């Protein structure tokens, strides 16, 4: 749950990188523009979630699924996202499947170690990446 307002923020470094990818090289992005885009992205998530949830409710389902999100994009008039989203979803599913199988193999070798890892993966994976961007040096020293 979001307990503090900051919990709704997305990591600045990642947002900046995504913006830069979309613009020609050398375009200067003002600080206010970055922060506005970042907040707009949070609003987008909430808006999409709300739309997707309506589709789930209509289908009498409690869990949001991929179809709900895609329907939400259409409803929000972001049809242009649907094709690329479907493509990446396919790749993502394949990747996840590969990971699962790799995990099974490892399980046989080192049962207890793997448990530690998967627990860590859940919590760390994303946070770690954020830290990586913003405070690389610090992290190294800590370890």
């Amino acid at each position: 749950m979001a307990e503090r307002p900051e919990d709704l923020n997305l990591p600045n470094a990642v947002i900046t990188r995504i913006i830069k990818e979309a613009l020609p090289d050398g375009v200067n992005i003002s600080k206010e523009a970055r922060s506005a885009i970042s907040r707009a992205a949070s609003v987008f998530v909430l808006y999409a979630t709300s739309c997707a949830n309506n589709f789930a409710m209509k289908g009498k389902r409690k869990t949001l699924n991929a179809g709900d999100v895609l329907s939400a994009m259409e409803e929000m008039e972001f049809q242009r996202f649907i094709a690329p989203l479907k493509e990446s979803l396919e790749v993502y599913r394949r990747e996840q499947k590969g990971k699962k199988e790799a995990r099974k193999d490892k399980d046989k070798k080192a049962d207890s170690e793997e448990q530690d890892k998967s627990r860590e993966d859940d919590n760390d994976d994303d946070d770690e990446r954020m830290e990586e961007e913003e405070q690389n040096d610090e992290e190294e020293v800590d370890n």
Partner: protein
Amino acid sequence: MRGERPGPRRGGKMAARLSGGENRLVSLPLSRIRVIMKSSPEVSSINQDALFLTAKATELFVQYLASYSYKHGRGKEKNALTYSDLSHTAEECETFQFLAGISPVLQNYTRLISAQRIAVSISDMPTFKSFQLVKQDLKKMCQIMWLKKSHI
């Protein structure tokens, strides 16, 4: 020096690198996207595919918003993307209008209203059209806030 971590962390890291590396499918943190999605009170659970798609869609949205605003904005002459290019987009482009009433609120939201309340009011809106009503309320609130504040 990087990647030379001792212990089990190193293993986890390597696995993450191999599966994505520089060409990760999605660069926004899924855990954070999940927190934002869950701040919507009526959402009970989200499956992994839906979470991934929302994160990916948000990235596409960020790119679209940035490139649209740059192309249609004035900053182009100066090789810059500015806040006014963005607010112009939110006001002029229908697809981005859902941002219009809200972005000033978000500019101030840490001080003025709790995120939870924004989340509730947004999730109350079933469609784009009903959004307009709440938007107007938010706009009024914004105006009051603007009067009290000298700058963004």
